[in-house]
């Protein structure tokens, strides 16, 4: 009797593990991320996308346009893990200094300048030869970011060198 009871208890425990395997993890893990962004930079944020490693494919995620100091609505997507993120700003524009000579003051090799010649002149020591650059495209920053699932509140801040970065809060 006692042995059969133990066996029954073991089977019941196993059955619980089996049946609840589809449920247990749901108590602890999220399968989507609800993302909200606060823009604390001096630039206008226009979007956050998940981008493939080779840059050929983009999945838009947060598509609000945020003035400095604003926060976005909440956007939910099935991104839990570590992904390549691109953040787009409209506050800067690409600046074609002259064909063949272009500024390179922005993070990640993007050619940025505020649309005034003074700023351009300040950064001119980092010029190099480059010919094909279009103007007025959004400024893009890229990098890996880990989304842990559930509600995520991201703050965009600006470094001293003008680049921005993401911070969870």
């Amino acid at each position, binding site marked *: 009797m006692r042995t059969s009871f133990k066996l029954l208890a073991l089977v019941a425990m196993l059955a619980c593990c089996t049946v609840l*395997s*589809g449920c247990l993890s749901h108590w602890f893990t999220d399968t989507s991320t609800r993302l909200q962004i606060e823009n604390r930079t001096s630039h206008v944020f226009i979007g956050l996308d998940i981008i*493939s490693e080779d840059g050929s494919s983009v999945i838009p995620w947060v598509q609000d346009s945020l003035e400095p100091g604003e926060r976005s609505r909440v956007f939910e997507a099935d991104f839990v893990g570590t992904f390549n993120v691109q953040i787009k700003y409209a506050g800067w524009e690409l600046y074609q200094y002259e064909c063949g000579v272009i500024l390179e003051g922005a993070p990640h090799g993007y050619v940025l300048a505020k649309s005034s010649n003074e700023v351009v002149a300040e950064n001119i020591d980092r010029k190099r030869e480059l010919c094909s650059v279009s103007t007025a495209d959004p400024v893009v920053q890229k990098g890996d970011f880990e989304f842990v699932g559930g509600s995520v509140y991201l703050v965009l801040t600006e470094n001293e060198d003008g680049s921005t970065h993401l911070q969870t809060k």
Partner: protein
Amino acid sequence: MSFSRFVKIALLSIPLVAPTVMADAIDVETLAMGGFWTRDDQLRDIGDQLLYGKASFFDIGFIYTPVSTQIPLKSMYGEHEGFAFRHHIAGMSSYPLGDNSFMSAMLWFERSGWDGEDFLLFPQYTDFGLVRSVTTWGVAYTNADVNYSVALGMQHQNVEFVGKVFPHENDSLLYSWANLRFGRVSAQAQFHRTHFRMFRLALNLEDRAVFGGASSGLWTYMPNIDATFYKRELDGFDDDFVRVNWEQNLWAQRLYAEVSYDFPDDGFHSAALKFYPDPSRFFSIEMTCLRRRAVADDWDDLMFGWAVDLAILRIGYNAANEYDHLFHARGTWIAEIHFNIESLNDMLFAKKGRQAAPLETQQVKRKNTPDKGSSTMPLTAPAGESTKTITAKGIRYEKAGNEGGK
């Protein structure tokens, strides 16, 4: 990593050890190729079962990976957390038609893929999941007199859901298959519509007690060899290959060596040393070595792993079987809760068992225990004496003239 996330992971990691959460990600191409190996696995199983001809068989199981970071998915966007899954159920049932002829019906079903949540029946279908099922069914006729089987059936691959990151594939594939066995020689073929896809020739020369053969001796050391020709296309080009498996009994149908080799180009695929404490194969311990290679990157290495099978639970770490059949998952402990049993005549054994499970032949004998049912015992007395009846408890009666006391 935030504190709440740490707590979540720590709680879920209790049953497993640290390497669990540090596994390598599986990639989308391997996951998309999974159906090919599932279909092959099911047909290989069916071929094995038809060797037993008139047996009945049942098999159920699922992979259990409790942590979402255990087998992440690597896509072009990054690394997604979630669950690789593989659930299967299979059965074969045989009925006698006449004295020596049998009809069998068989159904193999597997649902596998990757999803954001783990589940038993209802997937979450997250944007980057892939849920695929493969069903193989068929009927077989076995003649035990001449010892041959003929089997025919169909195989369906259905894609329930394909996420954004996977290569496009047909949502429904229909195959047909046939299996012909004469004695210990089997031939199996698979077709997609009218196109030939696979042909397998298997020689199971090893003698098995469950077939009525020997349980020891020279014939049990004969090899089991199969060669499979696969018609395959990769990136629109023909990539046909032949895989040869050799299974060899090394000691008393308890220790086996297995080698798998790919012709013409790929060469050595895997090798394993498997120990079955009992030839009925409910329990096993295996050590495996698998060759991983990426031709394009000119990269090649050997992966060593092991697995323990405890009748209802299999735990493996980098084992070749898990690598091959769970989308190249490695670097993590993989538990499979499963059970399979096969019955043939009055014998019970596990999948591909060589001898009946010993529980069949054990007889429990009571020694020196009084038989309670016969406390009232009529005694036949020698001629001339009257018949007596003695009612007694706990007293041993010895009849005069016998050597009693036993």
